């Protein structure tokens, strides 16, 4: 049972990090658009 929890924790963590990549990309794009504004 705990094995399943630890495997789920690992998979969940890396899924979160993959979503974090998208978040950083979006944060960068928003900031880039802000920089371009006169």
């Amino acid at each position, binding site marked *: 049972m705990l094995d399943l929890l630890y495997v789920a924790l690992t998979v969940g963590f*890396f899924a979160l990090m993959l979503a974090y990549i998208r978040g950083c990309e979006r944060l960068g794009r928003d*900031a880039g658009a*802000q920089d371009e504004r006169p």
Partner: protein
Amino acid sequence: MTWNGWLQILVFSGLVLAVTKPVGIYLVRVYDGSLRWLAPVERAIYRLAGVDPDENQHWTRYAAALLVFSAVSMLVTYVALRLQGHLPLNPFQRPGVVDRQAFETAASFTTNTNWQSYAGETTMSYLSQMMQLAFHNFTSAAAGVACAVALARGIARRSGTGIGNFWVDLIRGTLYLFLPASFVLALLFVQQGTIQNFAHYITATTVEGAKQVLAMGPVASQTAIKQLGTNGGGFFNANAAHPFENPTPWTNFLSVFAIFVVPAGLTWFYGRTVRNQRHGWALWAAMFVLFAGGVATTYWAEARGNPIHAARGVDVVATATNPGGNMEGKEVRFGIANSALYATVTTDASCGAVNSMHDSFTPLGGLVPLVNIQLGELIFGGVGSGLYGMIVMAVLTVFIAGLMVGRTPEYLGKKIQSREVRMAMLYVLIFPAVILVLTAASAVLPSGLAGRNNVGPHGLSEILYAFSSVTGNNGSAFAGLSGGSYYYNTLLGLGTLFGRFAMMVPMLALAGFLAERKAVPESAGTFPVTTPLFVVLLVGVIVIVGALTFFPALSLGPVVEHLLMQTGRLF
């Protein structure tokens, strides 16, 4: 303190300087693809793994490849450790590693941390040591260097959005750098007497007539990569204090020297890649200043010893027959100078191997390793992670300097604007957030407090050191905390994961954003990044960011312990 001790530290520093350029030249050849002597092996791996080595990846694909590789290899390690009892090369019938320790160990080795809540010689089979743990020792080190190389490429790019290919960087780093270097170092260790065998453990009779079991195993090969790859996880529980791993002064020197070899060379590699060699040396100088300050403080504090001992008549002055100072937790063979040097180097880098027990250092002596970790382990640093940590700090330094003079900051011809600063700030803030939140929780929860070996400020130092060590991917322990519980195994395992990947992603984003920026020519308003002023400012930014973040916690731990020690109180 002795002249002999200072001389050894000086020789060590001189040799690190001497190898920086040759290692840097070799690193350039590894990562620009000009080294081809293992090309057939390389091609076979690409074909087998279905990798297109010519793909120039966008930073998002580079980061995703890093995460997928790490996730899969961590899960395989978890399963293999759990099933250890059914796998071969297990002459002592070691059972499967318990779930919480398997999770923590898999996370810890995947992230180049190598925090160990177990004793290797009584928990792991030879197969687990040689396949699972050693695999991560090589690949986590190569992944760290790959990320630093990707950041260097992002800064050096004049056009385009790619930062390289993660799979190629990982495989080339493993094949051309860590495998051959570890092979040579392992042979040197064996020549000096480090054991390398598959023998059964030996039962010996001591001079007092007691029975003692002497652990055997393939130690030299494990030790070589754990030092070169700044991994640090020992074959034995006593790590580099064990005479079968570190039998002579030469193995001790090679061990500590190997930690700095690749990180020092990477500064030269970086200078060459961004076509500004003097900037590479400026980063080296900033690292050296911080290293020198740390080793001098630790050596002074440990050689000075504990005033409570002196007040009770213990001779703490060094003589020809007495090392003096604080020898608790230190090997008599290595003495105070080599223990102080080792403790400083292993925490400057993200290695974590130890030849003395940091928990037994004086409060100020123990403060230095803790601060080294909390500065981000960028003083030469972990392989790759030290360089990219220092580059992030350089970006912040240039940004602050730009604010001072009221111009858009530039770093090596690239404008630093809002998106780069956001990524740099994410990188800088995640690290203390993880450490301080987990430490604060453990300082009040019964499960957290139960792990302490000492009360008062020293107990807080134990908890703070543990979470700093795992989040910084260092892995050295203060040796006082009992981390073998569901609470600590799970939280420390998670700490290693957040400390590695939650910082690598914004750093790779920074690489990608800088790659997209068009280079601008230097102008009169460009802040020079090759001068002593830049080095001073960079060191200042690192120290101030670290001090502002961690000083309150440190003042409740080692600082107050030092002050109370002066009044005769121990914890």
